[in-house]
């Protein structure tokens, strides 16, 4: 029963996971940094070699990078922002008692477990300019007078993919916010009712402050996921038409697919730098949580 060298145990226990993580995360990241300073095109293996800052200069002077950066910001702000709003509304509704609530809650989570590719294809089919159901509905209601090829024209393609990502993300927000709402003690609202507080006062004085941490963590996580998301846009438009739907993730993925790894590495590091602005507050929060 004597536990000899108990201090070795924890290290042995984390060793397998650590080994995997070092091999598939940390070593590759160092590799990316190294590749970003190289001409590393797998289609021209003979020309692989260090080229200093050339990739960085090329990225920063390429108009497509700046367009993609801007698209990433719009994609994240509009996508996550509206996921938040609708997720909040859905959570608020589901927090009421009504028949079949459990079923409704489960069913409303389905988009969250649906593969991104399938989501992209389902929406592509609905947006179709010839046989798409969305055009059929809009024509019936009279909102448009001829079918709109949503994904084929630059003006409508970006809003169309954003609507799709909103649809995908509502359930996750609703799920997290609902859990937060259920953690708020009912007495708070009862006390507010006695004091004659209005609905909006209750929302801003009780609900939102109590949910602060949930909203913060969920939003930051979502921002990171949405910014990193490739499958939805790529399978709807591949970043087109033109650069209309090319976020940094898509731009990088397209470059990686053409095996231009050096340039793609530089792009992905740029995306990582952008995301660090979001990740740092999240990490700080996590550190605080670890300390408690």
């Amino acid at each position, binding site marked *: 029963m004597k536990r000899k060298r108990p201090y070795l145990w924890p290290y042995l226990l984390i060793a397998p996971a650590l080994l995997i993580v070092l091999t598939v995360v940390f070593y590759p990241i160092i*590799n990316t940094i190294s590749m970003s300073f190289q001409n590393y095109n797998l289609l021209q293996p003979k020309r692989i070699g260090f080229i200093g800052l050339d990739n960085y200069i090329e990225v920063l002077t390429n108009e497509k990078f700046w367009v993609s950066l801007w698209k990433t910001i719009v994609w994240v702000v509009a996508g996550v922002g509206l996921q938040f709003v609708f997720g909040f509304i859905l959570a608020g509704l589901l927090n009421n008692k009504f028949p079949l609530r459990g079923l409704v809650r489960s069913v409303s989570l389905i988009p969250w477990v649906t593969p991104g590719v399938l989501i992209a294809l389902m929406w592509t089919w*609905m947006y179709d300019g010839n046989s798409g159901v969305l055009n059929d509905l809009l024509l019936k209601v009279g909102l448009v007078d001829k079918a709109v090829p949503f994904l084929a024209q630059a003006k409508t393609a970006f809003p169309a993919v954003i609507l799709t990502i909103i649809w995908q993300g509502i359930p996750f927000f609703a799920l997290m916010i609902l859990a937060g709402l259920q953690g708020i003690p009912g007495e708070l609202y009862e006390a507010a009712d006695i004091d004659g507080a209005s609905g909006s006062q209750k929302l801003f004085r009780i609900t939102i402050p109590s949910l602060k941490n949930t909203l913060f963590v969920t939003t930051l996580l979502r921002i*990171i996921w949405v910014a990193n998301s490739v499958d939805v846009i790529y399978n709807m438009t591949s970043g087109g038409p033109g650069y209309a739907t090319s976020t940094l993730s898509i731009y990088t993925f397209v470059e990686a697919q053409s095996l231009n790894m050096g340039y793609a590495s530089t792009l992905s590091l740029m*995306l990582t730098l952008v995301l660090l602005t979001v990740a740092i507050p999240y990490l700080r929060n996590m550190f605080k*949580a*670890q300390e408690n």
Partner: protein
Amino acid sequence: MHKRSLATNIFLLFLPLLILLLFILFPFYWTFITSIKPEQELYTRVLTYWPQAPTWQNYRDLFVKFDFVEPIKNSLLVAAMATIVSLVVSLLAAYAFSRFEFKGKKIFMVMFLTNNMFPTVLLLIPLYTLMRQLGLLFTPASLVLSYTTFTIPFSVWLLNGYLHDLPHSLEEVALVDGANRAQAFLRIILPLMIPCLIATGVYIFMTSWNEYTFAVMFTNADNRTIPVALKKMVGQFKIEWGLLTAGGIITIIPVCTMFFFAQKRLVEGLTAGAVKG
């Protein structure tokens, strides 16, 4: 909460809920309807919102003409392997984090927890070259390994939360009774953790089953997973929407079923961290 009148309930609860649910569920309805429409009904001038001649032909074609069984087998293999590998190593790590104090614990923990924040495309590129060098490119192993980049951090976090809620006194009793750590873990902790392991496993399986970005780069015709196979249906001459939607329905049935069974505990685990903070 005080009682509200029926009218308020209708306008403030049922109506908005109905609209949101319509928005959330309509795409699935439309996918299903498309999958049971005969070809000629798909591209007509007048759209039908319920098929005039429903048929299972697309589902038959999917397996007979398209050989959808292969991608299903590949996806099952990859998702099952990813689940087993991630669960085992994550459970060990989470146990260490929740039950031991050791030097560097905080750094290790942050290392695990943060690494699913790296962009997929950041890891995709070096992993592609790594898999090529290791000779793993275009094998299921390359996907299993790549998926651990997001399944391990997530599972460690989730399992750590579950373990945290199991009182330490349980094992201490066993330790006092003369069992060693390993015995206490196997006899006391493991049985209690089974529901949590299932919930975590379902999540890992689900995300591996659904993954596309790594899958499209790391597979070829021999080991394509379902998401890649679905997308491949688009490539040929025209898009076979009937086949594609049938494939889509088949893809989500297993994950939805698993999710419904595991959802309660999974949601508890997911939300506990964020809510408690």
